[in-house]
């Protein structure tokens, strides 16, 4: 919503809250070896609650994103996510590593839960198909886009928080690199270094899947 620029310009300045930024990038902590998705699924099959929570943390946002795109309604998408994780909990023992990557299996389980929810509820009003042909992507293109988003969002969850932070700000906050640097109280060079290392890490994770 736009307002006349005279509106609401009644702000009071207060002193800067942020500390003076350090000029040096601190050495990154040595990352602990994280269990793979396949290892976690094997533990979930044995009813390991902690493993389930790690898996949940890795996949909840990608699966929620997938559900939102397919269902077009936050409430239905929430239900679909919960149903997807209930299915993962119930059927983790059926995962066979020799048949493919755990990520693919999780994607399939999530997609099935979303499709089930779609069948039960029908698409939300905003997600109804138009009667006339349009230039919008068709079902196969939409499915491919959903798959890409799922994999990219899943990979983002694997980044170190400080890399994920600069990438999310750079891509989706509308801020320039200089503004991100000012916002985080970091030197511009540090922001660029973190962005580059984050992109490189994403490239490694997505290699063979999307690159």
């Amino acid at each position, binding site marked *: 919503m736009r307002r006349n620029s005279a509106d609401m310009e009644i702000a009071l300045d207060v002193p800067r809250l942020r500390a003076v930024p350090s000029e040096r990038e601190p050495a990154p902590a040595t990352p602990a070896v994280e269990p793979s998705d396949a290892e976690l699924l094997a533990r979930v099959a044995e009813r390991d609650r902690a493993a389930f929570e790690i898996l949940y943390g890795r996949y909840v946002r990608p699966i929620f994103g997938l559900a939102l795109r397919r269902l077009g309604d936050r409430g239905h998408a929430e239900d679909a996510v919960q149903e997807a994780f209930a299915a993962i909990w119930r059927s983790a023992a059926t995962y066979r590593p020799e048949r493919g990557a755990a990520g693919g299996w999780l994607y399939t389980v999530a997609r099935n839960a979303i499709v089930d929810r779609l069948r039960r509820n029908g698409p939300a009003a905003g997600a109804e198909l138009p009667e006339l042909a349009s230039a919008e992507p068709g079902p196969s293109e939409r499915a491919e886009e959903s798959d890409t988003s799922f994999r990219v969002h899943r990979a983002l969850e694997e980044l170190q928080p400080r890399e994920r932070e600069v990438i999310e700000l750079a891509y989706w906050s509308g801020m320039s690199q200089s503004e991100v640097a000012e*916002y985080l109280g970091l030197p511009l060079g540090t922001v660029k270094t973190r962005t580059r290392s984050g992109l490189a890490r994403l490239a490694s994770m997505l290699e063979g899947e999307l690159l």
Partner: protein
Amino acid sequence: MNREPRFDELMDAETTGEERERLRHVHELLLQAGPPPELTPKLRTAPGSESGVVHLQRRSVKRRGLLLLAAAVSIAAVFAAGYGVANSRHGGTTATGVVAKTVALKGTAAVPKAEATLEVWKPQAGNWPMTLSVSGLPKLPQHVYYEVYLVRNGKPWAPCGAFRVGSPSQALTLRLNAPYKLRKGDTWVVTRPAPGGRDPGKTVLRPVTA
């Protein structure tokens, strides 16, 4: 408006050749994928206990009804507690009136360091004066403003005022107004206009939930 980052702005000149192209491809994938969704309070933690997960599919209508009743009681209790706390903290009255509700807001993924406190005062002639103290929001382009939205039934429902910030590190205190009859369960978010100016835009600050 949101601007798409340019790859050459993100990248230093030292990254060249195949590596640069590899990273450019990731850049395009990020643009294609769009932002990951902000999790709703319900999804922020894994489904409860083991039995909660196993029985998720077997929720009965009765159970759902009980949960709704419990939620309604909780909301009423929180509203009442907030009223009491705010009253006791402010001694009941100030120059503006009596605080009816205090809402703590936290930045979403796009602005994780932003935070705000919204104080809603007792109504005056049907208007609910509000004070918003906010910090950590980035400056927006010219003629684009943050919006404070009344949330009803989980969705931004009605605007309560717009504002702008000078810089991300600048904290502000604003006086706004909700010219609506408030209901139990109402809360507020701060949004930023979406590309194309669709209302209410993307949520940048949402209530902190217990």
